[in-house]
């Protein structure tokens, strides 16, 4: 994929490979050389089934995992620090994504404090802003995760990620564990946040309906290889690869019938 130089990229990934070596059994190639990029302010969806390498790719971009080879360039428009604050991540499991022994407000205060917001009054204003931006309010600041619903927890996780003003937010199956009626709220929230700010999303999901809703472009992974990429509407409406077509066809919708895979 060639990229014209004038495009303002927030993320540029090239030739990404990752091989896992387990202690028993041989090496497993999770990613076999994939490349993609995200323009500032846009949303790229990484689509694939289990074992496709989509989560591994996201974790490498976040810096939670190191690549075997390849380059990951994040341009967050700020002076580079030691860690990549420019990239934050929201995880799938709403129950594991928050420290169970820390109140919501205290957690946000802690984050802001270690990032240089010294004055308590400043932090308090910012915490209120952050909670409001994810559809919560100051009453939730004193609550512990155990007293929040799954949807509220994911909202708090998003607020925590936004606290550091990231240029890129990675959402790793962030709405998959939520009930459909709550999932729609969080998807709308994510759309609103993107409208308000210039944040970019890397949205990892197996759910093509969700992907259609949130992303501008998408890439389809299978067994660690990139098999199709392009604007989301084009890829889902007119897939060029048989595998992508099979993925689209397998999504239940009105009038749909399950089909046996050809053996």
């Amino acid at each position, binding site marked *: 994929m060639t990229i014209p130089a004038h495009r303002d990229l927030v993320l540029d990934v090239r030739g990404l490979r990752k091989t896992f070596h387990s202690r028993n059994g041989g090496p497993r190639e999770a990613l076999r050389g994939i490349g993609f990029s995200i323009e500032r302010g846009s949303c790229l969806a990484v689509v694939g*089934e*289990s074992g496709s390498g989509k989560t591994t790719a996201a974790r490498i971009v976040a810096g939670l995992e190191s690549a075997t080879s390849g380059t990951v360039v994040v341009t967050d428009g700020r002076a580079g620090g030691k860690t990549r604050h420019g990239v934050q991540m929201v995880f799938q499991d709403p129950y594991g994504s928050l420290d169970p022994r820390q109140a919501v407000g205290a957690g946000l205060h802690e984050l802001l404090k270690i990032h240089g917001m010294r004055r308590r009054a400043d932090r308090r204003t910012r915490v209120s802003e952050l909670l409001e931006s994810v559809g919560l309010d100051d009453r939730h600041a004193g609550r512990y995760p155990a007293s929040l*619903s*799954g*949807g*509220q927890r994911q909202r708090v996780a998003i607020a925590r990620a936004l606290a550091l003003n990231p240029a890129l937010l990675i959402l790793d199956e962030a709405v998959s564990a939520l*009930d*459909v*009626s*709550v*999932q*729609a*709220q969080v*998807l*709308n929230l994510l*759309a609103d946040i993107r409208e308000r700010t210039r944040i970019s999303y890397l949205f990892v999901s*197996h*759910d*093509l*309906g*969700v*992907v*259609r*809703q949130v992303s501008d472009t998408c890439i389809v992974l299978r067994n660690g290889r990139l098999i199709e990429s392009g604007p989301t*509407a084009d890829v*889902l*409406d007119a897939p060029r690869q048989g595998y992508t077509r*099979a*993925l*689209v*066809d*397998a*999504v*239940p*919708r*009105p*009038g*749909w*019938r*399950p*089909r*046996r*895979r050809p*053996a």
Partner: protein
Amino acid sequence: MTPAPLFRIQDLHVRLRHRGGERTLVREVSLSVRSGQSVGLVGESGSGKSVSIKAAMRLLPRGTRAEGRIAFDGGDVLTLGRRELARYRSREVALIHQDPRAHINPTRTVGAFLTEGVVHTGQMNRAEATERACALMADVGITDAARRLHQYPHQLSGGLLQRVMIVAALLPSPRLIFADEPTTALDVTVQSDVMAILLEQIRERQVSMLFVTHDLDLAAAVTDRLAVMYAGSIVETGPSAEISARPLHPYTAGLLQCRPSTAEVKRLTAIPGRPVAAHEAGTGCSFAPRCPFAVERCRAERPHDRSIEGRTVACHRVEEIADRLEERAS
């Protein structure tokens, strides 16, 4: 007159002992499955759909009490004695779980798992059981059945293992299969495959199915009738195609509208708030706090089932709002 249904739940209540008091998990659930019919039970977390299935299998945990009537082929399931219950569970009905790996002994081979039950209950001898298991495995598209019988669960993929579970369910030739989110843990392409196989098998054998899922689109596609549950009660029952084309209960309509489509982009009409459990619901309609059509009466008085357009809908205002729901959906 139509014959009596094969399986019928009437006015089922399930309550859980909780801190000295009782908590309602399921309230006034009535539902029937005819011979050869498949019925979908759809709901979000806490709606009571899985609890209802557990009650139907008499698998409720300790401290839980089921009241009402659950009839299978005319007999009352809730009062079955130990031996009849064992017979009911091993021959008349079968259960397919969401997570096959959690329900198979990892230290035994697939063959041992499949044949153990039917041999133990004396329905077949080991050779017959193995032969029939091989035949069924071929039917569900498992190639090389003889070799698979000697493999262990960890050597099989999730999709393959769920097909083994279908074989296990079909082996004793049950008349009704309870499927509790059987494809939720699977990838979509595998889900389509496994669902197609399951449907093929139950149609061929005239087996009835009660299919529990959170996915309304999936349920509508694979069942004849649907029952939509919210907060421990059924809010709407009717033919699957009609419900998904023209929902009559505001909750069903809301569910259909907030599901993102793969074919078009539009702002999702989310249902405000979160799903509640039966014990959290107040005196009125349990959906009233989230319902855009709720009026004073909805908050004060629990709605009873009303028949409309060949469906059963638990909503006070169903006649007034039926057409507005459709408007909103389009």
